[in-house]
């Protein structure tokens, strides 16, 4: 990893407007947890937290959106405006460039998601059943790493990374994997839920993932490594188009 690229990318990603938007996104689950505590509902805090707060809101919306923004911007913005030439023209292994970009895209997402998950879960559960908190926090942090790998890859393969990422998140993960069971093996969301289920060890009534926990963990590792390898390969063969 290259420290200069890591710091440069963090500065790119954490511009005032983008940072505020991502913080606002991270605050959503906290607000939802507060509303749940104030509302009069028949659902148990454990079940509401696992299925609605963490699965329904954090894993399905906040996690992919945040990693989509950071993951596609980390390198995609430089490709779009041409400043990537300053990285390409340096004597650096392409793996070092990509791993620095990945670390810079993952770190802010992981920190914000971990904080958001911890605070919102603690509020919603009222301090009980910490296994849900541990399970989902670890799974979400791991999921954010895999999503970052995937979205970084998307940004070097297409100029429309944000649109491609949104299609993946909302069409593929949100609709297709719900309709066709077999496609769940190609869903970072399902991997994340599987790992959360594995670590949280909740009862089936409280929360149950569609994917086996161990399989989810293995698939997560495979997806991350494949996405990273494809990104490095593509970036090593990256061509700068010219106007003349």
């Amino acid at each position, binding site marked *: 990893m290259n420290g*200069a690229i890591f710091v440069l990318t963090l500065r790119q990603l954490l511009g005032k407007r983008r940072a505020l938007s991502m913080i606002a996104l991270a605050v959503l689950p906290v607000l939802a947890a507060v509303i749940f505590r104030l509302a009069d509902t028949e659902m148990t805090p454990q079940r509401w937290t696992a299925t609605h707060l963490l699965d329904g809101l954090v894993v399905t919306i906040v996690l992919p959106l945040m990693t989509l923004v950071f993951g596609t911007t980390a390198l995609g913005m430089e490709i779009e405006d041409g400043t990537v030439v300053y990285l390409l*023209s340096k*004597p650096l292994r392409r793996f070092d460039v990509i791993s620095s970009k990945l670390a810079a895209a993952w770190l802010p997402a992981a920190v914000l998601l971990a904080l958001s998950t911890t605070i919102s879960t603690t509020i919603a559960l009222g301090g009980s059943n910490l296994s849900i908190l541990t399970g989902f926090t670890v799974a979400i942090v791991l999921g954010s790493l895999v999503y970052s790998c995937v979205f970084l890859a998307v940004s070097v393969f297409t100029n429309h990374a944000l649109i491609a990422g949104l299609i993946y998140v909302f069409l593929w993960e949100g609709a297709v994997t719900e309709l066709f069971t077999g496609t769940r093996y190609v869903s970072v969301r399902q991997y994340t839920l599987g790992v959360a289920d594995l670590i949280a060890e909740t009862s089936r009534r409280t929360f149950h993932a569609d994917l086996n926990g161990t399989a989810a963990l293995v698939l997560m590792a495979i997806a991350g490594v494949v996405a990273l390898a494809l990104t490095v390969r593509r970036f090593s063969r990256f061509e700068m188009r010219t106007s003349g």
Partner: protein
Amino acid sequence: MTAKPPPPPTAAADITTPAVRLEGVSRWYGNVVAVNKISFSVGPGITGLLGPNGAGKSTILHMIAGFLKPSSGSVKVLGSPAWQNWQIYRRVGLVPEREAVYPFLTGYEFVLLSAQLHKLPDPHAAARQAIRLVDMEQAQARKTGGYSKGMKQRVKLAAALVHDPPLLLLDEPFNGTDPGQRLRMMALLREMAAAGRTIVFSSHILEEVERLSDNVLVIVAGRLAASGDFHAIRRLMTDHPHTFTLRSSDDRRLGAALIAEPSVIGLELTDGRLNVRTSDFGAFAHAAPRVAHENGVTIFELLPADRSLESVFSYLVSR
């Protein structure tokens, strides 16, 4: 620019291998041929890639810089293939054409970043030296997002020079610079070339190439139209028949007198203007005011009608 450029690294002294060698290089995008079977070698000194916009200069520079894979042929830089060879950048400095720089970095941070990415032993000292070379000390603490185009060009040059490369590639480096900045940049590049470096730059401005280059490669429609000493190419260009448009106090009288001049090969009077074709614009430029004066005619306007580079280049290609 008071600071002297440092002496070149020893690698630049290797004169047996050309710094840049292209052999039968073509590059196409789908059915469009951007560069067509070009071969040339470049050694120490300043070489200008001259050609109209869209001629293929940037494509050639990008292939030399290793940013584009040749569709056929080979591109070697300092003896090594340029494509997919990140090690060459230890010895190559690049100033890209695109204006974009990281707008949130100051000029100093931008050059320092380049020094850090080159893993120089003292990046701060190297950055300070490079900024001094391009005369940007006054503005180095300002964010590059607020720089003028000329300032961006200079800070990009500083970033390209920070590791003291023996080969410097510059894509339209004078775009947006004011005349003073241009002269200072040219003086710096000449000093660097005199110290043994190889500098290749592209331009569509004839005068820039004339002022700076020892060696010229004229690129037209993706082909190498001419190459060699600038003055020889310039002579070819001045042989090109030129047309001038004249407006005077008595166009008929002036036209009748000018037709007797040996440099004039034809003329016509249309829409109140006199169009004169000449085989030697240097001789015509001297003859026109003299003839006008002898005949008591006042010239109000004398404009070259076909001074676009495209017409000159088309002429070169057709030769």
